[in-house]
Structures are given as C-alpha cells and as structure tokens.
C-alpha cells in the first residue's frame, strides 16, 4: 500500500532520501501546473516549483505532521507565486509602462498542430485552442488570491479548510471568495458556458 504524504515526510526526516524522491514524483506535476497557472510562465513555474521542494527538503528535520502535507506544500508555493507576481509587475513597470503586463503574455502550451492531421482535425484543434486561450485568460484576470483559490479548488481538489489555510483566510471568507471568483469566470466565459465543445469520439 502506498505510504501517505505524512509517512513519507517522516521517513525523509529520518534520513531516507528515497522517500523524498517519491514525494517529488507525487507532487512535481501538480505543483508545476499550479504555479504555471499562477505566474503564466513555464520556466518561472518550474523554477518556483524547485524552490518549493528545496525548502521542504531543507526543513525536513523539523517536520512535524501538524497539518496536511499538501497544505504546507501549497502554502509555500502560493506565497512564492504571489511574491514572484509582484516582482514581475515591479520589474515590468521599471522597464516600460508601455509594455503589456506579464499576465497578458500568452505562454503557449498548446499541443503543436500535427501536419499529418486532416483538415477537420486541424480545425477542431484550432477551435479547442481558442477556447483554452479564453479560459486561460479569464483565470489570469482574476485577482491573485482568487486565482490561487480557484486553482487549488478546481485543479487540486483541496478541501475548503485546506485552501483557507493556504490563502490565509477563514473558511467562510474562503467560500465567498471562491464564489465571487467563479461568478466572475461565469460571466467572463459566458459565451462558452453552456456551449459544450463539439462532440468527438475521444475525450
């Protein structure tokens, strides 16, 4: 049976590096994805994810299972992301006020169009990509704290209490924060909401 995060972390604390590799394996992708959605830059997301893991590793000997491991992990990640977004803005403003904000820079993660695909497939993919770009942009436009909350709720499926601890507010404040965020997204994405993508065999 798979060991829980807490068991793994306790083994890491006891000096077992293999267990840290397992934790890494378990959370590298969730963390990179979360950070990517936060900062919208792939390279920066990976740098931040590394920083999160390094900090966890450095603190291993003092680890105490007083909260869920994911709460701790994503709280470090969220703080780093928020700091980095702020730094980006400062830097951007110093460079030029005419330049688009970092948040508007589209960092394409679309799968490349394969020339071997038929025309219908290519068209289908273009539609898909346009939808995804709209979704990404809508998420990016949310205030940072709301964005973090939505990502943790929607894509990490964390519990309200956990998310509340991560973004540092009460559970009831979190619920209304989340509601406002989704309400904004619903309005922003109104043209797509209730208009499912064309059915295709494999999805």
């Amino acid at each position, binding site marked *: 049976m798979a060991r829980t995060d807490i068991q793994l972390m306790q083994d890491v604390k006891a000096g077992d*590096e293999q267990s*840290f590799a397992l934790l890494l394996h378990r959370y*590298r*992708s969730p963390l*990179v*994805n979360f950070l990517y959605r936060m900062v919208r830059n*792939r390279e920066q997301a*990976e740098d*931040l*994810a*590394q*920083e999160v*893991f*390094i*900090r*966890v*590793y*450095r*603190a*291993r000997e*003092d*680890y*105490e*299972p*007083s*909260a869920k491991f994911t*709460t*701790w992990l994503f*709280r*470090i990640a969220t*703080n*780093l992301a928020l*700091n*980095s977004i*702020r730094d980006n803005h400062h830097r951007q403003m110093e460079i030029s006020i005419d330049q688009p904000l970092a948040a508007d820079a589209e960092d394409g*993660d*679309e*799968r490349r169009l394969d020339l071997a695909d038929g025309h219908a497939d290519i068209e289908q993919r273009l539609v898909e990509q346009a*939808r*995804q770009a709209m*979704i*990404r942009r809508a*998420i990016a436009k949310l205030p940072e704290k709301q964005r973090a909350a939505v990502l943790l709720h*929607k*894509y990490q499926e964390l519990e*309200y*209490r956990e998310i509340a*601890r991560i973004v540092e507010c009460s559970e009831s404040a979190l*619920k*209304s924060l*989340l*509601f406002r965020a*989704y309400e904004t*997204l*619903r309005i922003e*994405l109104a043209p797509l*909401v*209730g208009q*499912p*993508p064309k059915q295709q065999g494999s999805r």
Partner: protein
Amino acid sequence: MNCARMESRILPYLDGRLKEGERAEAEKHLAACAVCRLRVNEFRSLSGLLDELPKIEPSAAFDLRMQARIAAAPPRQSWWAWLAPSPRVAFAASLLLLATVWVASRPAEHGLNMAAPDTELRMMKDLPVLEDYDVLANFEPLPDLPPPVEAENQ
C-alpha cells in the same frame, strides 16, 4: 430556503460537501426555483469548461536540476544541539531568534534564492495555530517548547 441562502451553497452543493439535510433543502429549493436552477447548471458547465484546460508536463530538465539541487543541499547544521539539554535556554534562544527573524523579515521581501528556510518552517509550525480547535481535536497539542528555529546561517 431563499435564493441568497442557496447562493452561498451552490459550490458546496456541487462539490457534494453539504450535509444530508442541507442537501435536501437545497434540492427542494432548486426544484421550485428556476433562477437558482439555471445558475447551478451554469456553475456546473463552468466547471466542465475549466476541465478543458490541458495539463502541462514538467520538462525533462526539471527532474535533472531537481536531483542536482537536492544532492547539493547542504546538510543541516545542528549547532543549537548543545542547547537541547537545557530546555529553558533553548526556549529563550528560540524566542530571541524568532524576534530577530521577525524584525529582520519585516522590511524586505525575501528574495528567491537563498531566502531563509525558517520562513517555511515557521509556516509549517504556524499552521495548526490558525485553527487550534481542529488541531486539539485531531492531534497532540503543540509541544510546550517551540522547536529550535533554524537560524539564518550566516
């Protein structure tokens, strides 16, 4: 139930996190109120819409760099170990350190690179304090001595 109340329960309802009675109440309202029903359906399809966003995979370089950085991570100094036999001294020292770290961390934001790991350490320790009731319910109370704080290494 009225519509305002329903509004505050849309998310927990869709997440399946309402208690049995609350869920029944919500469903009763939804059966009677077309406005809320529409809204719930829109939230549901919004959630489906958000599922369309593809995941990215960490690059191959990510794992290599990670391994290298972990391997290079210095072993933790435990210079405070000598304090351990005397909890009182350790306690006082921790307080002093906490105060120092707190003061030191006030004005400047931590840079990315070598930012003091004690920030995260304290974060970890702080977590239960935010909601002590559930810590008290689920875990042992906080140890009466704060654990040694990893000081700035410099």
